[in-house]
């Protein structure tokens, strides 16, 4: 197992396990897990996600995660 961090932003924060107010969560996942595996573990529906950023770089759903990676999950949003 390895440790990664997940940050669920905006309306996706309802998928946090600890509290909606969490800034991010630490999670243990199997070595070799991908972005898609992580989102599945968190029950985040794929259509609700507009962008995944791993360590401040855009990531595809098949990207394999590494120990201590920080994964940001971003919904569709517009305005300003």
């Amino acid at each position: 197992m390895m440790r990664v961090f997940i940050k669920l932003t905006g309306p996706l924060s309802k998928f946090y396990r600890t509290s909606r107010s969490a800034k991010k969560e630490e999670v243990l996942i199997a070595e070799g897990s991908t972005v898609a595996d992580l989102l599945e573990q968190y029950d985040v529906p794929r259509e609700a996600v507009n962008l995944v950023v791993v360590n401040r770089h855009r990531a595809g759903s098949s990207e394999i995660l590494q120990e201590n990676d920080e994964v940001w999950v971003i919904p569709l949003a517009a305005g300003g």
Partner: protein
Amino acid sequence: MNGWMGKILRVNLTSGEIVKQPMDPDLARNYVGGRGLASKILFDELELDCDPLGPENMLIFVNGPLTVTGALSSGRYMIVTKSPLTGTICSSNSGGYFPAAFKTAGYDAIIFMGRAEKLVYLWIHDDNVEIREATELKGMDTHETVELVRRETHKEARVACIGPAGENLVRYAAVINDACRAAARSGVGTVMGSKNLKAVAVRGTKGVRVADPEELLRSNIIADHIKKADLGIAFAEFGTPLFVDVMNANNIMPTRNFKEGFFHEGDVINGAEMIDRTLVRSKACYGCPLNCGRNTRLPADAKFQGRGDGPEYETCFSLGSNICVGDLDALTKMNYICNEVGMDTMDAGTTLATIMELYEMGLITEKKIGFPLVWGDYDNCIRLLYLIARGEAFGREAGMGGKYLADKYGAPEVFMGSKGQGFAGYHPRGMVGQGLLYATSPEGGNHTTGNTIQPEINGIPEPMDPLTATGKPEMVISRQDETAFIEACGVCVFPYMLLEEGTEIIAEFYSAVVGEHYSEDDVRKIGERIFNLEREFNRRLGFTRKNDSLPKRLTEEPHNEGIGEGNVVPLEEMLDRYYQLRGWTGDGVPSEEKLKDLGII
């Protein structure tokens, strides 16, 4: 007339003369209303080279034919004038409930000319219009002004007013309506101050005639769809500050005066933190399903106290990340102060960021300011905001804006704006189309003339690479023209720009209101006419390609670590193509043929 009230009010503040003039149907057909109608009036009547703060400048309050019709989000008005900040034509847009009252009083526009001898306000109760003395309102903030004007007029009057910043001619003073909504940009409040006009109070009880009311019932279906969609839910819950996370994730949240695109303390100034700490309730403007407004209160344990609205995303950037303030309480307080004194939070923030960088470079000293001003020092930012609004000490100079200061203190390159107006909260090195938009906006560094987020960041309608020039000139032109039409209608751009079929919907609503068929192409053409007219207004004042510029920080300094690392804005390449597609010369001048084709000359 269907849609229009058919009447324009002309108020000469010098002579006190008030004239009601019928709306010219050709003018309405060709320029619609809002920004379009008012820009055309300015173009035809203003001595273009006039001093923006002289009595000869005109200040136009204007709504549109769709305002208060039941069309989606139809509660907007605009203030159009020649800007004292940029010297260009400008249009500043606001929502709330004032626009509905203004239109139902029976007027499509109010044109203010001249300058009152003493401070006055205008009171409109349907057909009764009077100029009243307002000397007792001098120096009052916008909240106090609303209260007092209502006491003197009607308890349900809707009030748009300036605060001390407008009275003291801070070049980025705002007009605040309904206490917390702002026609903030380009110094429209400064022009109002220069005319000694403190407030406009309105009570309207008339109806708006619509050709096909049944077609407008579709608004309810679309509103319902928006409310249930992920995007609508997110908007209602988090408001525009949701964008802090989105911009940070995309590495385009301008930070430290645009040196960077990532703010490490984003978590403490975002929509989620507002829900936990300051949000009282979400709120909507007239006739809008989005509920993106935030009514907030600073908690009892906060260092600062106050209650009001916001901040919106743009303020989270301008008085947050861009000056390195990672403290929601301080940010909220600064937002309240700007609303109370009547000042644009965005150019106030740009000005603070410019001073901070000049201070860091040793070009402005502690002695000059009266205190130190380092990145993130919100206590001294608050001190300076008050000095600016009052026009006292260094605040007098700071009230001239970031460009003035950067030029005066020998580092023009540190001003992050275009044509004298500060940028919005989207870093163009990470979304270069936004850079083209800023450079070509008729009113300077402004995101509201056609935001590029949907195509560049959300990939709607089709994914496009935010980092390259490919397709950007075409996309920006289309966004600019569509936005010009939407704003001319007197509705909010948000829902129409969010929906993929937004242009089709606005064309259908417009057709239903006026009773004639308009296709998507027809409304784009009207938008193009408005945009070109504004361009030609500026061109006659000498604005050409040389003014469609961006600071070197965006075009030469590579983007910081993260998404888009190393990228710069390929402005000149985009401009060449943009001008060509627009039918303008290589110097950015609309050709005679183009102006004739659009019926401008």
